[in-house]
């Protein structure tokens, strides 16, 4: 089933960490396996933030193979060494869990080659790279993930998130949403639905040099849009193209450094409730997600089939 939520403050920043947590917690019944946040935070915008994992969370109903934590440290050392070889300068590093890290760094070259090399290290996956994007995903509900990664204090302009019920692939972080729009900085995607032409599209995109880290059908949306943008399409053009290029049922959100968009398949088979005002746009799989941050009476509506909308901050 899965639940998705998003919000965008126009012209100001707010405590998006806590707000998104409230929205995703209200949707917990739609997806209790894992929760993910893509927060567009008030960083200084000078340096890249890279979030990556060197292993999986093997607790909380995980379908991953148990590993000795000592291998995580060895993989981290390999990442450090690779960063040095690539000419990236790490300004600050934080160990968030035994398997995940947040690095602040300077890097001026091609992100695709950069990512390929980092991810050539066994079991290392870049969760996100961006100047404002902070992408966090882990097993457990929204409250558990917020506490584990101390997201309650994060302020920013917009955010999207996902509460996952695993149906197409395992209960693990690599299959959790949001997906980073590799290799574009600050692009993230969350999805509710099922894609039925996943393998056809994946084969085509892999032949074009795009990378897939999981076998989760939703990852296709991030890669699909990234490939369109790589060939010069705007985000909105890529999203409109996806309505015919992706087969199945879906509602998805995509966020960039300064925008947030939604797309709904032509069957309108997956739910979405929207609230729009001059100050705030909030959206979620169910109205209770929006009500969790806007308890007073508001006007909301369901977008129609095949609708694509993009908002700027």
């Amino acid at each position, binding site marked *: 089933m899965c639940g998705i939520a998003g919000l965008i403050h126009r012209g100001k920043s707010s405590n998006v960490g806590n707000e998104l947590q409230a929205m995703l917690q209200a949707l917990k019944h739609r997806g209790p396996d894992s929760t993910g946040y893509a927060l567009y935070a008030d960083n200084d915008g000078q340096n890249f933030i890279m979030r990556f994992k060197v292993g999986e969370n093997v607790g909380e109903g995980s379908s991953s193979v148990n590993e000795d934590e000592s291998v995580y440290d060895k993989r981290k050392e390999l990442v450090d060494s690779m960063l040095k070889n690539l000419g990236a300068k790490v300004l600050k590093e934080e160990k968030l869990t035994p398997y995940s890290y947040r690095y602040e760094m300077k890097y001026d070259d091609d992100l695709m080659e950069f990512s390929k090399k980092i991810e050539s290290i066994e079991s290392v996956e870049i969760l996100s790279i961006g100047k404002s994007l902070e992408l966090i995903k882990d097993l457990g509900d929204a409250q558990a993930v917020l506490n584990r990664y101390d997201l309650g204090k994060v302020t920013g302009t917009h955010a999207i998130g996902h509460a996952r019920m695993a149906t197409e692939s395992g209960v693990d972080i690599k299959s959790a949403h949001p997906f980073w729009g590799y290799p574009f900085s600050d692009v993230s995607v969350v999805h509710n639905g099922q894609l039925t032409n996943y393998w056809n599209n994946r084969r085509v995109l892999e032949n074009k040099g795009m990378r897939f880290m999981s076998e989760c059908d939703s990852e296709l949306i991030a890669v699909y849009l990234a490939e369109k943008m790589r060939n010069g399409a705007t985000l909105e053009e890529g999203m409109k193209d996806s309505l015919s290029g992706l087969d199945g049922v879906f509602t998805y959100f995509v966020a960039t450094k300064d925008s947030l968009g939604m797309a709904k398949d032509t069957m309108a*088979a997956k739910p979405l409730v929207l609230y729009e005002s001059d100050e705030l746009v909030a959206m979620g799989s169910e*109205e*209770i997600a*929006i009500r969790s941050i806007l308890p007073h*009476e508001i*006007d909301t509506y*369901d977008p129609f*089939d095949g609708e694509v909308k993009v908002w700027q901050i």
Partner: protein
Amino acid sequence: MANIKSNENKTKAQSMGLHSEVLTGKTQQKFFNPDEAENFYYWGTYDVDFNKRIDLDVNDLDCKEANKKIDELMSQGYGTIVIKNPQGKHSLGVGVLNKLNLIFEGSLGYFGVGSIDGPTVRINGRVGWSCAENMMAGKVVIEKNAGSCFGAAVRGGDLICKGSVGARTGIDQKGGTIIVGGDAGAFTGFMMQRGRIIILGNVGINLGDSMYDGTIYVGGKIGSFGSDAIESPMTKSDIDWIKRKLKVAEIGENFDVSKMTKVVAGKKLWNYDALEPTEKKGAI
């Protein structure tokens, strides 16, 4: 439980390999035999007084607790219940099987007021997916918008949304009337079997797809017709009936009903006309 007996009189249809059945079970007799139904006890119904009014704040209740509370209040004779702070909760006000004035001051989530038989419901906010699913009788008025599957499998009564509705409005509709003041999404009247839908605004693609029977009236533009749906000429009876229904719904006062498009099923099913003769349709 109903027994199914074969009809011994063979017909042409049976000789072609089709068969007919009649339901003769105890439950059927209770429902359809007026003598036996006289003292039939309908579980979960109450005699209520419309003048006995109470407010119920459900902010701190989950849907099960809220519905139990509504049931409890009806058992105490309250005939007008005002629900405060519904906050988009799911499945509120379901299964009310007696007359009642039920007022929601706010918005409902999914499956609101489903399987009701008799109450008059007014919702000041918006409703989520599958509002009034399986409604059997009564009247439901929504002041704002509604989500998808609005009035799924409705069997009777009037279901009115003054705003716009999502996709698959009236999916599997089996009777009653659905009225929408604004626009409707794709697949409106999908697999509709009986009853009528009135949309004053535009509708999306695949209108009336796979409909068996029933009638859809559209005031605005139609995205496309679904398979089996065809346009039919508007008659004076249609116009008079829609005008009357819009008065009941308190919308479309100055709407030019004569310019609406009437959509019906373009196929004939072998037993549908036998089950519901044309003269009966007028009484729905």
